[in-house]
């Protein structure tokens, strides 16, 4: 794939990773891209680099436009290794006059590469940088999603180079949103938000409001992963909804099971939820990846958890999932729990505790069943589901 001119004299020069399937525990079954952008101006400027093993792809694309040695400036919008892994090698080749980054960017680069001798130029939020015919405005976006994160806005092109925000782990031969299947794209964008940015939702809301206040006109958003948005309104609106925790009339029953008892209970709970006219997904943790489940959590109103008791605790897959979900801080959810047990039966209490920590509205103390559920036990589970379904209907 050749470099793609996304705006006059602005080129995508990144790398497409068709084979990656695990991104620090996030399942990337559609692969991903590491996007870097090159502006040809009086000062030739490269925005971000790529993962270490994709250096050749980046250099090849740059060389189709200009010899890398001619690049004057490097901008590091985000230090994470998938965007900076090959930075030391690129620095050796390019030897840029200046390396622009945020205050925290400088510290983070030093903590990664330990190079005091690089020509850091720390930018202040809102600071302008003239490249000749184009002007870059830097926008600090701390904790979206690292302390060093920032955006670069190309004023003349109304182009927002947005670092990881608005990204998707989505490999494709096309580079723009309107060239790929929209449902696939929006699913990958939602999954990305749910697994990377969910916990920073209050900051996302604040950022969208401040961008509107600044009166920043945005014609195109170029993130560091996935396709480029020629319809920026679509993804900005989606981020507004996700960051405000807007939920649909939907519930998830997430469970793991040892000898199918908790699975039987899960199905009965789902039946009860459905009885109330609420859509429900049954998600067995043995076959659903945690990062896929998080994409479903994003717009679900209720989360119902099921686990039997093992060794006085939870089944490990549920324990792992709960640890992961808690860190991502979903909010404004309705919760309930259920599970089978043999003698001690702590699982329901443990799941309720984590949901309380996440400030879920627990609508029922939960259902516990000894060993194998009877017909009467399953009726209790249906009743639990109905209670959840009713609460969802009242809330949405």
């Amino acid at each position, binding site marked *: 794939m050749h470099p793609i001119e996304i705006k006059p004299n602005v080129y995508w020069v990144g790398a497409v990773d068709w084979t990656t399937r695990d991104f620090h525990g996030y399942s990337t079954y559609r692969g991903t891209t590491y996007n870097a952008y090159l502006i040809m101006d009086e000062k030739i400027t490269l925005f971000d680099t790529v993962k270490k093993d994709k250096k050749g792809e980046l250099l090849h694309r740059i060389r189709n436009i200009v010899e890398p040695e001619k690049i004057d400036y490097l901008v590091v919008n985000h230090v994470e290794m998938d965007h900076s892994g090959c930075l030391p090698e690129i620095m050796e080749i390019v030897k840029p006059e200046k390396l622009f980054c945020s205050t*925290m960017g400088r510290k983070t680069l030093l903590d990664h590469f330990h190079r005091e001798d690089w020509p850091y130029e720390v930018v202040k939020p809102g600071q302008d940088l003239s490249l000749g015919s184009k002007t870059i405005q830097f926008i*600090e976006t*701390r*904790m979206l999603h690292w*302390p060093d994160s920032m955006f670069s806005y190309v004023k003349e092109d109304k182009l927002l180079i947005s670092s990881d925000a608005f990204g998707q782990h989505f490999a494709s031969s096309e580079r723009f949103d309107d060239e790929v299947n929209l449902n696939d794209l929006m699913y990958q964008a939602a999954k990305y938000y749910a697994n990377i940015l969910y916990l*920073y939702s*209050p*900051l996302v809301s604040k950022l969208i409001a401040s961008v509107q206040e600044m009166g920043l006109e945005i014609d195109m958003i170029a993130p560091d992963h996935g396709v480029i948005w020629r319809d920026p309104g679509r993804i900005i609106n989606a981020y507004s909804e996700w960051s405000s925790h807007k939920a649909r009339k939907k519930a998830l029953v997430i469970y793991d099971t040892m000898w199918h008892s908790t699975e039987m209970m899960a199905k009965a709970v789902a039946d009860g939820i459905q009885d109330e006219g609420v859509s429900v997904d049954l998600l067995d943790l043995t076959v659903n990846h945690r990062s896929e489940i998080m994409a479903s959590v994003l717009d679900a109103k209720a989360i119902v958890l099921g686990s039997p008791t093992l060794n006085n605790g939870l089944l490990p897959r549920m324990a792992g999932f709960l640890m992961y979900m808690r860190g991502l801080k979903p909010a404004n959810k309705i919760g309930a729990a259920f599970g089978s047990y043999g003698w001690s039966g702590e699982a329901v209490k443990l799941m309720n505790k984590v949901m309380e920590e996440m400030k879920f509205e627990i609508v029922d103390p939960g259902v516990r069943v000894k060993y194998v559920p009877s017909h009467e036990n399953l009726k209790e589970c249906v009743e639990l589901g109905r209670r959840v379904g009713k609460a969802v209907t009242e809330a949405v």
Partner: protein
Amino acid sequence: MQKYKCDICGYVYDPEAGDPGSGIAPGVSYDDLPDDWTCPVCGAAKDQFSPTD
């Protein structure tokens, strides 16, 4: 003295250590921090902190 944790990034303000990078000397309690003090890691406002152990 009571420590406070940033709700956004998890940074803990420990009064015994202060925040020398922002000109806050050791020994300044959270309550005595200036209103415009922000989290040295993520820039969160002072009211986005909660008491912690």
